[in-house]
């Protein structure tokens, strides 16, 4: 079996190869019995998988529809943040721990080769307060980088690291530089509100951070209340937006979230 043809075999099976590549493989299979056998086995597996579809339970549809019966769709968010007034925050922007995997991201972040670091911000004073994020007037930021120097990352998946975003920004880069371990390509901030939304609003400032900010709440009521406060504070305007992959991952763990793009 010739290793260099392995991926090409699967591409041909999946109809993803160019005519030239198909021809290349066909010619090779004519002269290589081992690859011919491998190709037939892979094709067999693909064929079996593709006819694995099973009938759904009779009550599937009714169960799904019953599940949304009393549910309201999320408000049309996120919002483009337009507040420009800044506050001095650099002194209280403290890296509490670098390279930690983020519990709130659950299983997905760890399985997605993503690195995270938790950053604690205390809006009550300018001193570092360590890891505890429940201090009065405080909030916690979970900044999730798109990719880190993960030594355990499979080499074949290394191309993932090259998927940079046009929304890269200097603030997130600062956090990564400070940690010394994480190179931020793009960041998604997860804010745990802790019932101190005004403090959160103050932090939503382009001079402090930019990118996608997910503010999570314990309940939908809290989330809706926060939405009103954000609107009343005049710091947001509605904007059409599609969930990015990062936000989708985050929302996988929390439905009661507001996503804001800070620019």
């Amino acid at each position, binding site marked *: 079996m010739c290793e260099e043809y392995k991926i090409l075999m*699967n591409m041909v099976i999946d109809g*993803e190869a160019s005519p030239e590549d198909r021809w290349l493989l066909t010619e090779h299979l004519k002269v290589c019995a081992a690859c011919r056998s491998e190709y037939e*086995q892979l094709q067999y597996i*693909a064929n079996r998988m*593709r006819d694995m579809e099973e009938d759904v339970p009779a009550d599937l549809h009714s*169960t799904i529809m019953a*599940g949304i019966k009393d549910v309201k769709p999320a408000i049309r968010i996120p919002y483009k943040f337009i507040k420009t007034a800044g506050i001095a925050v650099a002194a209280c922007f403290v890296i509490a721990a670098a390279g930690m995997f983020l519990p709130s991201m659950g*299983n997905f972040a760890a399985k997605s080769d993503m690195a995270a670091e938790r950053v604690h911000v205390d809006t009550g004073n300018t001193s570092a307060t360590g890891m505890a994020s429940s201090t009065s007037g405080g909030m916690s930021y979970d900044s999730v980088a798109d990719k880190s120097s993960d030594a355990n990352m499979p080499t074949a998946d290394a191309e993932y690291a090259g998927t940079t975003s046009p929304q890269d920004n200097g603030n997130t880069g600062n956090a990564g530089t400070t940690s010394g371990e994480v190179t931020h390509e793009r960041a998604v901030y997860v804010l745990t509100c802790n019932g101190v939304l005004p403090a959160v609003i103050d932090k939503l400032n382009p001079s402090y951070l930019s990118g996608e900010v997910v503010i999570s709440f314990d309940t939908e009521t809290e989330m809706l209340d926060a939405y009103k406060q954000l609107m009343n504070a005049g710091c947001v305007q509605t904007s059409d937006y599609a969930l990015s992959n990062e936000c989708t991952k985050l929302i996988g763990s929390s439905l009661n979230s507001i996503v804001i793009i800070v620019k």
Partner: protein
Amino acid sequence: MNERELVALAQKGNKDAFEQIVTTYEKKIYNMALRYTQDPEDALDICQEVFLRVYRFLPRFKGDSTLSTWIYRITMNVCHDTTAKKTNIYELSLDSGTNDDEPTSEIADLRFDPENEFEKKQTRELIARGITMLDSDHRDAIIMRDINGMSYDEIAYALGVSQGTVKSRISRAREKLKNFLIKNGNFFAQNQSKYNED
């Protein structure tokens, strides 16, 4: 009415439009979840949760990807959340290679016969078991490809990885499944010319 119009209606709160979306995707989502969990009850729960999230967050769907890609992406998230809560005793067994303690198939000497539907069914069941033993990256990719019929581009977008990574993951997934079948079912030992019957 095309899908874009249907989505627009559903985004405005039209439940009939949303129900059409459910009808379109529920079978795919259920099978995706079933392949992921191997548990019909879990698959049902996952379906319900997926469409709950789709319903809640559809107003945010702008159409940068296809609706199917967006829904399948959410499905994978829910599958991950669900399986993370359970201990998978077979985890890593596909990679362990020579682990004598790993469970063995009750189908000890399954022979391939393209004419035998019963054995085809057994093969599918064995493959289904093999899928659950893949690590999640490979499992996501192969389910999206072979169960959902997604293109490499769509999978790459849904998983947030490059197309090269998708190619690699699919190749590795099939290789591991092949080894699993060989080890557990004595596949491919005979009559190789029949493998590619369909």
